[in-house]
């Protein structure tokens, strides 16, 4: 059996000495689409933040492996350069750095060489058009004055340009109207292939339309309490989390 792209073993995570995750196990293979669901405040964002190496979260027990390497102690920028990407629930606004410069710098950081300007610009404009972002946004400061939907599209634009091996999407669809969700899904589909993988946190099945979901995990009180296939999304959408019985 091939090495999973991401493997999480018995992960315990604390913030301010309060344990949020109490032993999470998860494996994501190359090309797979995984969905993480669960009621608010159960630790979904904590899990992806810990995987990304957010310094506010402390891994007290367990290991995280990425591409077969133990990255539990790796810095966030190292994980990103290895091919991890986190789409933030609340992307930062940074005045003074244009969207174009930011993405070009990020692409240079993960690939190890600065992209050639004209080819980069051409691709950026193409991907912006795909996401319905006016090209004038390339010259605007990063996320400054962007609407909630535009910020999320900016995250997907970064995903499309940086081409990571693993994307962790933390409620990328929250605050988006129906059309914007569809556009974002199209962007994700354009990026997704047999080599790269997705872990999507969502409360809404709309973003999953057109994606072949391989596994669904339900997180409750810091533990994965149920796992299954795409049918689990339908079950939760129709009956809520109460309808999903915990596995023994």
């Amino acid at each position: 059996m091939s090495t999973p792209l991401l493997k999480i073993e018995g992960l315990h995570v604390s913030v301010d000495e309060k344990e949020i995750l109490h032993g999470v196990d998860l494996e994501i293979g190359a090309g797979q689409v995984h969905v993480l669901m669960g009621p608010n405040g159960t630790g979904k964002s904590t899990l992806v933040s810990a995987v990304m190496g957010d310094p506010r979260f402390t891994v007290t027990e367990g290991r995280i492996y990425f591409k077969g390497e133990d990255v539990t102690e790796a810095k966030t920028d190292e994980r990103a350069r290895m091919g991890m990407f986190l789409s933030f629930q609340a992307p930062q606004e940074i005045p003074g750095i244009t969207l174009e410069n930011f993405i070009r710098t990020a692409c240079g950081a993960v690939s190890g060489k600065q992209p050639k300007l004209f080819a980069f610009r051409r691709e950026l404009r193409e991907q912006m058009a795909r996401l319905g972002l006016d090209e004038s946004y390339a010259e605007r400061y990063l996320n400054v004055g962007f609407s909630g939907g535009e910020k999320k599209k900016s995250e997907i634009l970064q995903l499309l340009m940086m081409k990571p091996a693993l994307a962790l999407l933390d409620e990328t669809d929250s605050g988006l109207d129906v059309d914007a969700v569809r556009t974002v899904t199209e962007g994700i589909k354009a990026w997704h292939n047999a080599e790269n993988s997705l872990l999507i946190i969502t409360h809404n099945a709309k973003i999953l339309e057109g994606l072949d979901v391989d596994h669904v995990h339900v997180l409750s009180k810091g533990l994965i309490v149920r796992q299954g296939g795409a049918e689990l999304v339908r079950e939760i959408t129709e009956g809520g989390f109460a309808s999903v019985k915990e596995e023994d």
Partner: protein
Amino acid sequence: MEKVNAIPSLTWHRLRVNEASEKGAFPPVPRRGWGAGDVTLVKVPRGITVDEDEPIACEELESGLGQYGDRLISENANSRWAVTVEKKIKNPLIIEDSVAAGCACVTCGSVYAVAGSALKIIHIFRGDEGVSQSLTRIYLEEGAQVELCEIQLLGAAVSRHCGVAAFGQAGSQFRYTRMELGGAVTVCGAKAVLSARSAAFDMACAYMGTGDEYLDFNDVANHIGRETGSEMHVFGVLGGTADKILRGTIDFRPGAGRSVGHESESVILMSPGVRNRTVPLILCGEEEVEGQHAASAGRLDEDALYYLNARGISPEEARRLMIEAGFRPVADRIPDAKLRDEVLEELGRRIASL
């Protein structure tokens, strides 16, 4: 000691912020004067008149440095320039002051902007050692627009004093950009008098203080006319044991009804050894006005740094980007692309040494 950069309304003496400290004193003028100055009008756009003498209307204008500082520069200037603008000019007037070891460049400049005219001025200050002093006085008739952009790229052994005075009639707009990147001593004071209805002052400044540099700023917006507006926003980075005071005053005089003034300062502190003092002041002699001030000082935003790290950018590079980002909105106001690129390149070098 005569006062330099004195705050318009005194506060407790024990705070030692009412005027520049001894570190900010003017260097003594040599008995034979400063000698020849090195000022070049690098680019003079067509359509402006270079005058022999300073327009009378400019002579009495007072900068933020105060009367004493203005007089010292004016009386001891070793180079002078004066221009009159009578129509809208597209290309900027570019002036360059250069200093060197044992030399001083003491410049007295003035601009008379006739009603409805427009002019952009870029004033660059270069050199590693010596004395750099400048006083720029600007008179704006009704509806005139003047943009002054001062870029200081001096070395760490230069003493610098810079005064700017502007007087705006109705509907005039004075846009002022100041970027201070070096100098052992940097003392700057800008004062804009918004004398009549709808006159506006828009100031954006950025500074960097490293080593044991002393930086002292005193910027004033005097609202006299109705519906006048001022925006004064400053960004700074301090490292080493740099010592900085910023005084920002919005003064709403009686009669300045429905006027609006905002001021802010954001400072990044790179070292525990820095001394950072900010004195925002809003004086109200009129009831129906809106005045706001905001100040923040601290380390780089950890959340923003994490966001950059999550895109593969190393902590060192993220730190450099964040500091550069603070300067960028100010640098983006430089109305000359080539010069803007040069400033950003120089900025990158200086950030690396922080």
